[in-house]
């Protein structure tokens, strides 16, 4: 299996920073806020490899830094330091060295993102079909009929009724909004997809169908995915490997079944023991 992404030393801090920020925060200190200068160390020294077609889970509670990791990789946020190499066929790109235009190109062509909050991923001022068309247009598809056909196919694939494609997603249920987001993210058949708490807040039967859909897509298109969640069930179902984060640090990484059956870190042990 080929590598698609190599992340090393990824760090994101919010604040002015001081020399003691790193040594004074993290799981050992039970905080991610530096007591000396008030800087928030959202993520520090995060490193992992992702292979083609693989699903990696990032698990942790609120404030653990798990979303920060995907936000920096999707260029929603600038990292403070670190590197991320993206392998695109024969090409290797240093994500954080690219200029904004190059980053936008990658976002539109090679990456996809599904946010917990559909407001972030969808434009509620245009129709569901229009949301997908927007992404297709950025991918140089120009013919109106082609765009409409492709949007209809994508919505059908994610089980959104095609007779509602001209409605604003504002009027859709939460589960349907997530489906439109997934259809939009998949429009360009990206090799890398980020999923940030995509099923949080949905009722159980809807969650189940969204998770099934994600797995089917992964099998059909061999899309590599990074799945961010606090839900052990989602991790168990989707991820082959898992990182556990706490206060901005990766405290444990391993095969998902090993993390759940033989967790090594005290925090993971507590988490697994309380969930099962």
């Amino acid at each position, binding site marked *: 299996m080929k590598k698609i992404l190599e992340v090393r030393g990824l760090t994101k801090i919010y604040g002015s920073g001081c020399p003691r920020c790193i040594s004074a925060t993290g799981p050992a200190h039970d905080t991610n806020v530096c007591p000396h200068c008030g800087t928030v160390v959202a993520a520090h020294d995060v490193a992992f490899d992702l*292979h083609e077609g693989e699903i990696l889970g990032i698990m942790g509670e609120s404030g653990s830094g798990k979303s920060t990791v995907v936000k920096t990789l999707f260029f929603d946020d600038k990292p403070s330091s670190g590197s991320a190499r993206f392998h695109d066929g024969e090409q290797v790109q240093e994500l954080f060295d690219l200029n904004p235009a190059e980053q936008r190109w990658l976002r539109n062509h090679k990456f996809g993102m599904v946010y917990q909050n559909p407001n972030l991923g969808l434009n509620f001022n245009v129709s569901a079909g229009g949301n997908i068309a927007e992404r297709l247009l950025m991918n140089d598809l120009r013919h109106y009929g082609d765009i409409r056909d492709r949007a209809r196919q994508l919505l059908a694939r994610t089980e959104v009724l095609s007779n509602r494609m001209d409605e604003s997603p504002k009027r859709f249920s939460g589960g349907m909004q997530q489906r439109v987001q997934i259809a939009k993210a998949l429009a360009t058949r990206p090799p890398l997809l980020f999923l940030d708490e995509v099923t949080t807040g949905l009722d159980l039967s809807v969650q189940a169908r969204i998770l099934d859909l994600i797995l089917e897509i992964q099998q059909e298109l061999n899309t590599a995915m990074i799945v961010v969640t606090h839900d052990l069930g989602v991790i168990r179902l989707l991820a082959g*490997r898992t990182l556990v984060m706490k206060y901005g640090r990766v405290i444990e990484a*391993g095969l998902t079944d090993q993390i759940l*059956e*033989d967790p090594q870190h*005290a925090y993971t*042990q*507590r988490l697994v023991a309380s969930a099962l």
Partner: protein
Amino acid sequence: MEPRLRIENLSKRFVLHEQAKTIPSCEDVNLSVYTGKLTALVGPTGAGKSSVLKCVYRSYLPTAGRMLYRNDLGTVTDLAQASDHEVLTLRRNDIGFVTQFLHCLPRKSALDVTCEPLIARGTSAHEAHEEGKRLLRCLKVPERLWGVPPATFSGGEKQRINLARGLIARPRLLLLDEPTASLDPGTTDNVISLLQDIKQDGVALLAIFHHPELVSRLADNVFELTPPLTTPNLQETTLS
């Protein structure tokens, strides 16, 4: 002949941070598994039989020791040290595990669950389904259940799905944790003949059986495990 798998000085201890305890599970295990042969793990409950299998499959991280796996090309990998990606590749192509319980994706039909390992390897859905049906028939899973998710199945039915799923991909090394525990005698005989078939095919098997009769019918080597010492003062260490 070089063994398919050689386990040297394997130990597994669980460190429970919350209770500041170390719980020994298996200590200093040494055994070999050969191509076309079945090595049976026997011993009382708590002797660490399942832990040995889980260490080999890397659901558990071994505390000490080596587990040397030799593939068809003669390349040896220490499963205790292998990277997660190496283990995932071995699980896909070489090493199978039939546990006592069926862990599968909900909402998938029994036939799809069975075929999954073949499809993950790139076999066409049609071919995988044909092989899946053959195995389910062989294991006497009634045809009316094939399209139903196994969540509602009886223990014995689930176990047969689990077996079919473990056998379908023809792994080079198959780990079996009491594969016949909840089966009736007739089905057990079918399982035994299936296991004999895959031995003939050159699969190496490491299996836990409770019935001495099964051991005598199937095993080429028997390895007896004894529970690790559990004297509290000896084993309970306080963690700082």
